[in-house]
Each structure stands twice: as C-alpha cells, then as structure tokens.
C-alpha cells in the first residue's frame, strides 16, 4: 500500500507541469492557484488541513481530482460544515469542480485539503509540499506555508488580483 502511494506520488511529480509563479500565484495552464497555507498541528494530531484559492481563467470547467504529499500517508479532499452546533466532515470522492471563469476557495470552515497520517507535525514557519492534480490542467506541486494553529487566511500578496 505504502509502495503504491509512493509510486503514485513519484508518477505525479514526474508528470507535474512546471509551474510559473509570480506575485505568489502559481499558474497551471488556465488555472491560477494563490494564497496557499496550512495550519500548524497540535501535539499528537495525526491530521492537518491545507487551504488555497483556485481560479479558472479558462473557458472550460476543470476539476481538482486529487492531491498527494510526501508529508502525509494519505491526502484527501474534504468539506466540513457546521450543522447547528455539530461539525460535519465529508470526503469529496469526485473532487472539487472549478467552473469556467470561476474561483473556488478552500478555507477554514469549508473545503480543505486533508493531510492524514502526518509523517511530522506541521510546524509554524515551515512549508508543506503538495501536488494537486486537475482533470484537464494536469498536476502541479505547490508549497503551503504553515501558519498558526487557528490561522484563517494567508497574508495577501500585493497585486495578485487581475491576472
């Protein structure tokens, strides 16, 4: 199982399209990825969350179908929601659609990249690499800066809008 994951990861890296990044935005074809971050984890917490904003500047819808990382045994796409006082979390087996011309934000309280079986705790100030795979645009590796345990958003980069 672990070997399979490692092989899948190696393949993902191999096929990952080189990404052009400027102003903190990573471009993958028509897909723009910005404001990435992860949250630092508590002692013994074997899971961590990753967040970012995905903009589809193209004329066709795309779909974030999977994510992988050497930092965790397994990476899944999840959605959490508060239902009254109850927190609910679900795995999104079909991934996350990025509509043509649309922007989808993975943020605390909603969609997130879920790192499970962390090899090491996420430490504030460090970075977590993650490879995102889109149905159309292909794969790209990005780095999520680790912010505080309850961080809500990455600090905005000047001029990241308007691409």
């Amino acid at each position, binding site marked *: 199982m672990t070997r399979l994951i490692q092989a899948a990861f190696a393949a993902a890296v191999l096929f990952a399209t080189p990404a052009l990044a400027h102003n903190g935005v990573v471009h993958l074809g028509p897909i723009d990825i910005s404001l990435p971050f992860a949250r630092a984890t508590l002692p013994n917490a074997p899971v961590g969350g990753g967040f970012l904003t995905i903009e589809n500047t193209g004329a066709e819808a795309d779909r974030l179908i999977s994510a992988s990382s050497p930092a965790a045994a*397994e990476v899944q796409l999840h959605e959490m929601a*508060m239902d009254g006082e109850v*927190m609910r979390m679900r795995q999104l087996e079909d991934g996350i659609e990025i509509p043509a011309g649309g922007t989808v934000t993975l943020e605390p309280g909603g969609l997130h990249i879920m790192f499970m079986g962390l090899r090491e705790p996420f430490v504030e100030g460090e970075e977590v690499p993650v490879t995102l795979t889109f149905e159309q645009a292909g794969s790209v590796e990005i780095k999520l800066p680790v912010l505080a345990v309850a961080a809500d958003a990455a600090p905005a980069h000047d001029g990241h809008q308007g691409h």
Partner: protein
Amino acid sequence: MTATRGIEMALHTIRTWLWISVIALAVTVGAAALLLRQQGTTAVASTSTGPSTFGKGSYELVDHRGDAMDETMFIGQPSVLFFGFTHCPEVCPTTMAEMASWFETLGPEAQDLRAYFVTVDPERDTPEIVGEYASWAGEQMTGVTGTPEEIAKIAKAWGVYYEKVPLEGDDYTMDHTASVYLIDDKGEFQGTVAYREDKDTALGKLRNLLAKS
C-alpha cells in the same frame, strides 16, 4: 461485463450511502429538536426551580494522568467542557487555540477555572495521547478518555452528538457537537460558547461564570 458489474456495485454503494445519509439526517434533526427542548427546559428550570437534570449522569472515565474521573469532576470549581478528538482537522485545534487565548487573557482571573477536553474517539485517543494534546492549550486543561460505553454516558448527559464517519482506506473521522459548555462550581450548566464565537463575547461569558462561582 466486469466494468458493468463494477458500476452496478458502485451505484449500489452510492444508494446505500444515500439511504444512510437520509437516516442520519433524520436522526440528527430529531436529536437537535430534543436537545433544543432540553436546553429550553434547562434555562427555565435553573432560574425557577434550582438544579436541573441537564449535564447530570453517572460515568467512570480516566484523565490523562491515569486518575479516575467521574461526574464529580464538575463540583468544587467552575469548568469549561469541550468534546473533541485528536484526529480532528479543524474544529478541535481551533477551539483549543481559542481556549488557550482565553486562559492567557484571563491570566490569574482564571486560576480557579478547570477545562476538560473529553474525547469522542476513545478507541484512538489513549490517556497519553489526549494528555499531550489537551495540555498544549494550558495547564488548566485536563484530557479525558474512557471506554466507549462510559464516553457515551457523559456525552448523553450533556446532549452531545457524535458519530463515526468512514473515510477511504479503513480510516474514519468523527462528526461531533463543537460547542464549549460552561459549568458552575456546583456542576450546573450555565451556557455555551459557540464554535468561533467572538473572543470578547466568550471572555464576557467566562468572567460571568467566574463571578457566579
């Protein structure tokens, strides 16, 4: 042939899960209605006729030092109570961070306040695991675990909902009530702090609790 079978099986799985979701939703709505009614009754009861039954139960748990804990854990000092689990991706770490910041702001004001992190995932959260996890938020914090049966009893006493949700690859996560309960030194329920409630509001509620106890 095999592909068709595969699709049929997948559809069957989806159908099964849809039904489970429908049933789970119905159960939740029912439980929520019950809880709301119970809380409504609590508010009335505690102002007019004294001690209420909300939060009352009998259970035998263990804290992160390995000491036995039971319902008397809420007697003798005001407490805050939170149910969570260490495999929790967001709500629990966020709430722990917020509690840590309350304790820090209150400083010596909060010296009599106790805080309990009770796991709803006792199969994975051993005393040692909950101990290190909970202690991160401050020395007031006590991590509490126990057998699944005893955890079910304390959760029931506080009207806490929790449920295992399967994930891919033999893994699972937990849905659970995310509110922080405020309890006075006689073990009486005094209200809740909602998930991500404004810090000043939360501090106001805590100061109120400390003044009453």
